[in-house]
């Protein structure tokens, strides 16, 4: 096994004389680059800071000229307003649970299908792949009306099944995992396992899963974030406050008050904070995943 892999690895290393040439080609980084990137960083972070500024000052402080640009001491009060109006902590828990289930099932079904489409001799596999890419181009809103009717027929309104079941697997995940498995899993490894007489599922479990774990984790993250941030579908199928997801709870607040900016912004911030905390730990992997999954060439 090692013997077959060896020549490949040496080929991938670039010839040494190429590197020196390449160096001379890269331009010096101009100060403008750093100014531009710092500006972009400010733009990216400012809205979060602003959420806190408004939420911690209360609407009156913000409604004057000049508005205060620094946080005030009102944040606990705003949090209390929010949690009294809607069961917000409940909503956070609901959303975390639903998002986790959807993320795990997406990862499982997508790696399985992606493996079959990338490496197994399955009849009609090219056609299947084209079909999957095609389904990604369908506008999602087209089926919503009928889906809603089905959910009410199944009595799934206010049931988390209405969120989970339609989302357990999706075209994007399958396509993405197929691309990843196709490029990251060496055929030699697969051949060797076959010669050793491993069953297909055994290959999946012992070779595919460990190899593509980082990419599968990123897919899980995407799916988690997508569910966490989904707004339309949950707001249609959930109307019992105890069942609200975070996004539905935030809108509820928006509707039940005469635009209370402080409460709105506070809720938006509370609903985003878990993701920001998560991002601190997984941001780098997410970035790597986005770039890995990008269509190249």
């Amino acid at each position, binding site marked *: 096994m090692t013997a077959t892999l060896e020549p490949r690895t040496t080929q991938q290393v670039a010839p040494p004389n190429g590197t020196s040439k390449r160096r001379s080609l890269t331009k010096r980084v101009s100060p403008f680059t750093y100014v531009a990137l710092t500006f972009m960083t400010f733009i990216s972070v400012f809205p979060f800071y602003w*959420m806190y500024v408004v939420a911690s000052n209360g609407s009156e402080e913000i409604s004057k000229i000049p*508005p205060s640009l620094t946080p005030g001491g009102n944040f606990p009060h705003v949090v209390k307003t929010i949690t009294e109006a809607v069961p917000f902590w409940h909503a956070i828990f609901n959303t975390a649970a639903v998002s986790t289930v959807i993320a795990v099932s997406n990862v499982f079904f997508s790696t399985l299908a992606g493996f079959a489409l990338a490496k197994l001799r399955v009849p009609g596999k090219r056609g299947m792949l084209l079909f999957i890419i095609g389904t990604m181009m*369908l506008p999602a809103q*087209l089926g919503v009306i009928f889906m809603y009717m089905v959910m009410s027929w199944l009595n799934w309104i206010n049931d988390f099944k209405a969120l989970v079941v339609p989302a357990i697997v999706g075209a994007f995940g399958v396509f993405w995992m197929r691309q990843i498995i196709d490029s990251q899993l060496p055929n030699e490894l697969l051949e060797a396992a076959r010669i050793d007489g491993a069953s*297909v599922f055994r290959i999946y479990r012992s070779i595919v899963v460990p190899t593509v774990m980082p990419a599968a984790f990123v897919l899980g993250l995407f799916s988690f974030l997508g569910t966490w941030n989904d707004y339309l579908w949950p707001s249609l199928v959930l109307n019992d406050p105890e069942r609200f997801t975070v996004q539905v709870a935030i809108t509820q607040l928006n509707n039940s008050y005469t635009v209370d900016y402080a409460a709105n912004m506070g809720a938006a911030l509370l609903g985003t904070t878990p993701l920001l905390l998560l991002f601190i730990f997984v941001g*780098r992997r997410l*970035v790597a995943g986005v770039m890995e999954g990008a*269509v190249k060439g």
Partner: protein
Amino acid sequence: MTTATTATVPRRRRRLSAIARQDRVGLFYVAPFFVHFVLFGAIPIVFTTALAFFNADFQTYYDFITTHQLSVLTNAFAGLENFRELFKDSYFWLALRNTFSIWLISTVPQLVIAFGLASLLANARLRASTFWRTVLMVPNITSVLAVAIVFQQLFGRDFGIVNVLLHYVGQKPVEWVAGTIPSHAAIATMINWRWLGYNSLIFLAAILAIPKELYESASLDGASRWQTVRYVTIPQMKNTITFMLVMGTIGGLGLFVEPLTYGGGFDGGANSQFLTMTLYLYKQAFMNQRLGYGAAIGVGITLVVMVISAINFMITRRIAGEESK
């Protein structure tokens, strides 16, 4: 391929077919996706399309599922009436124009700036490159709803920061909600804020994947910086650009959470100045309870998406296809 081959081939084929037989289990691996797609993708789409030919509200629907009387359906059958109405519906055409306007002022600057940022990030000598890349991704993890809430405040007429800043440079306050173009610009800003970093990273990945030899030969040929971008970078990124245009079109034409939150309702502003197509679909289907008409709007949106995707495809072929040879 059939008979005239050497003796080793049949044996090889037998070995392969053993693998092929074993691999057939792969059909079960892809089956969950397809079963799920039929149940939650295809059937809803087909039936929603069918619904467009009926004059149906929720009552019609409940009557049908409780009585199981076909006459309920035949009575509600409307033929092409919904489509005829849609064709004459000035709100739908207004929504189409608004959607296009917002999509245009969000897509074009976004892709240009993202490309610029990606070129800055692609420099191998850039310090703290991981930090910059990661920070650019932060807006993308935020929910559309949270983004809309913040920007709604930032673009507030009287006390929003944007107008306050304009006041200090001696400008009159802009009607960011009541005005047509200003409201489109505000909504486009929300979209741009959320997607700029993500798109930069996609462009960056594509730039980094371009073989360095192409740049070397371009510089040996004495190509200018602009010529290098035009004849090396852009053609090499053909697939990425096509992909982003197609996905951006689908996302852009499906736009509705931003205008919904920004206007605080399904009307898209007091004069429907930022009513979008999908917002109109939900307004008709779920607010006015006109499921059939909502479905017809959905069919209309799909036709628009298909036409635009085809145009996109031809344009990207034109731009990048010929020069890449």
